[in-house]
């Protein structure tokens, strides 16, 4: 029989290194996978770790993927640290794209170029509202935020599908489920001319600094952390668990909504039913691999972007299936959980079960 025993003093160094060990495991298994599929593992590795980094243009593309992941994962980190399990960032992201589009579609040729600020705000608010539904249901009816937020993702997908097939469909779009391409006033200005990277990256990095300050330098951030680490201590101190629930959900909803707005106002430039790529779910992995710390989350969002781009490249160049990105994400999360478990627990093989007391026969 296998038994897990908790270690009295788990190594702190290993706990910090755990994401790197997990990455190593992921690579080893991934390489094995490529070999099994009959691909040159060296070439495959290049697709993941060289091509996306080889020049400025590639890095700009990387930043486009990393920015939304970073934003969403930052919000989720705050949530998870205080023990609020928001699994529905994807839904909040989708609502962000819809809210942003609602404002973007109002742009006319003589709109101010500040309209894009309204676009971002609308997306942020929409994501916040979607998360507020979860908070309300949890607060009022004690419904599990895990289930509610997850199920609201599917509702959000239906709302998206409705607007792009119905009221907001581009009349000249050959009946594709998409809106018109946004006017320039409703789009994010580019960071460097000629490349797709935009100011969204700067916003994401700014958020990273703010969230770090919030977590580690404010009383509100400390209260949220206590609520997650020791709920009974929070109750004893008088930190309200309701306010922790609302703050974290509204904050993470806003961040996911902002990421959605940046996506439609940035690289995509219109709303289509294909905008959501699962960033909201991938960001859960990003948050945990980044140890729920803003700086770690920044690094892990870059790593996850490598997986996204590497997956796309190996699809087009090596003819591997699209699901390769998902496989890598899954491998990474699985390895991380395994590492964390083995750092905190040791495995014991126990031979026989201890029998119930037998009175007389033993000598």
């Amino acid at each position: 029989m296998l038994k897990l025993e908790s270690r009295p003093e788990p190594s702190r160094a290993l706990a910090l290194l755990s994401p790197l060990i997990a990455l190593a495991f992921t690579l080893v298994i991934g390489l094995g996978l490529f070999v099994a599929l009959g691909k040159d593992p060296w070439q495959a590795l290049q697709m993941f770790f060289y091509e996306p980094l080889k020049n400025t243009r590639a890095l700009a593309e990387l930043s486009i993927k990393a920015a939304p992941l970073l934003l969403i994962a930052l919000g989720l980190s705050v949530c998870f640290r205080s023990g609020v399990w928001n699994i529905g960032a994807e839904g909040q992201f989708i609502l962000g794209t819809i809210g942003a589009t609602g404002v973007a579609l109002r742009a006319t040729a003589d709109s101010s170029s500040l309209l894009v600020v309204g676009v971002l705000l609308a997306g942020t608010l929409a994501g916040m509202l979607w998360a507020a539904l979860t908070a309300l249901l949890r607060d009022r009816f004690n419904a599990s935020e895990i289930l509610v937020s997850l199920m609201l993702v599917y509702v959000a997908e239906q709302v998206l599908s409705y607007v792009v097939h119905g009221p907001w469909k581009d009349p000249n779009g050959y009946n594709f489920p998409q809106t018109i391409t946004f006017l320039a006033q409703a789009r994010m200005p580019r960071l460097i001319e000629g490349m797709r990277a935009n100011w969204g990256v700067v916003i994401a990095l700014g958020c990273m600094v703010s969230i770090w300050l919030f977590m580690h330098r404010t009383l509100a951030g400390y209260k949220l952390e206590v609520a997650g680490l020791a709920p009974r201590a929070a109750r004893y101190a008088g930190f309200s668990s309701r306010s922790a629930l609302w703050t974290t959900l509204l904050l993470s909803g806003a961040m996911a909504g902002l990421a959605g707005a940046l996506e439609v106002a940035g690289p995509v430039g219109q709303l289509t039913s294909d905008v959501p790529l699962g960033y909201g779910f991938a960001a859960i992995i990003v948050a945990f691999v980044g140890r729920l710390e803003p700086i770690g989350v920044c690094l892990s969002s870059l790593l996850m972007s490598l997986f996204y781009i590497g997956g796309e490249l190996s699809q087009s160049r090596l003819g591997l299936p699209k699901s390769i990105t998902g496989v890598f994400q899954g491998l990474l999360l699985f390895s991380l959980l395994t590492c964390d478990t083995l750092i905190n627990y040791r495995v014991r093989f126990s031979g026989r079960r201890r029998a119930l007391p037998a009175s007389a026969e033993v000598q």
Partner: protein
Amino acid sequence: MRLELHDVTKLYPGVRANDGISLSVKAGEIHAVLGENGAGKSTLMKIIYGVTQPDSGRMLWNGREVRVASPEQARGLGIAMVFQHFSLFETLTVVENVWLGLSEKSKPRVAARIRELGQSYGLEVDPDRPVHTLSVGERQRVEIVRALLTDPKLLILDEPTSVLTPQAIERLFETLRRLAADGCSILYISHKLDEIRTLCDQCTVLRAGKVTGHVARPAAETNASLSRLMLGAEPPILEHHERQPGEVVLEVNGLSLEKQDEFGVSLRGVSFRVAAGEVLGVAGVSGNGQGELLAALSGEDRRATPNAIKLFGRDIAGAPPARRRRLGLHYVPEERLGRATVPVHSLSENTLLTRKDSVAPGAWLRRAPLRELARSIIARFRVKARGPGSLARSLSGGNLQKYVVGREIDARPKLLIVAQPTWGVDVGAAAQIRGELLGLRDSGSALLVVSEELEELLELSDSLVVIANGRVSPRIARRDATRALIGEWMSGLWPEQSESTATSNREETPLAQARVEA
């Protein structure tokens, strides 16, 4: 000799839990093993009962050398153990619980044996009652009966009295004496000096894993001499001066609260007052509403009806903990780790839980004043910690308790509520904590101390109330509170006299009258 241990040593990483321990128990002897928390008593019993194996040393059973590899084998030899924490299924009846662990197939026969044993040793318990309807004392009887059914030659009892009322303790001792008279040896683990002096024939004292003394007749010793062996020093004697209490600080008036979970207790019409400069002790067997009362007083449970709880005449029944703290009410809960402190946070961060207004007002955290506060608490209360950066969970129980009590005393509370101030704390730290609490009282604060240890309450309190089944007794002055009387009250039998506590908080229940009516 029934049992002999020679040079038993058990090492755990970083600590010699047992270091060359020798001890021998005769047939029919009640042998005490005395020592403070962490002295190695439990490890030694686990070795005898086969739960763990010693690294070296010999064990002789009836003169023959044995190796006990498992509790199963220990029971086979005739060794039985009653653990401090009961292992009974609440939903099953007594006979079902006992029968579960036996090879005997017939339930009625087991029931008959339970009755028979109960009668001969004063352990009466109805075999057909479900365990959840039994009191704590009755549950312990079930555990002992279960142990006796295997017909043991040695019975080990681990701190058996911590859950009992004084009357129940008297009854347990009666049982143990009868068992010993029938030839069963008893190993009695305790840190309570009085009990050992009344009950035991022999006493082995442990300190830091070593035997520091064998006492042939504990009854002939004094508490001071025993505790010198146990601690290496005599505990400081507390100075308890009579003091005239001042104005009423806390007033609880007809507080009733429905229980929130199945195993909770509903509070019913709880009324009492605490005045400045006095310590009011709340005695009672655990699980009689102490937790519920404390939650209502601390503000963790805010369902109390308006005016049921007043602080300096102001209604605080619905006030959150932070507001109560601003009004001068501080609280030390029973659980140090996870409630009074966040285990993985440093001592300095843990000051923020209750002291944020005083050290770091405003929305931003400034680390320097937190560290300064933690450093001063560590110094003033002699907390053994590497510094303000030590994690709360890295401290020993006694040191963390000193830190938590210190953190709240340092806030100069007008009312300090303390639950189990010295629970699981070594004797030296306990004496220090009690001294600090009395010092706070002498400086004019009001204290409410909830404890299951009557000795402690008698040492600390000016007056006592007893909580039983969600109701609180009238107050009684310490000089009138005998163990017998408090014991009766712990079963809920006190004279009903309405308004006795409300009219004047210094009015004490006349002892004679209490006895007659109870």
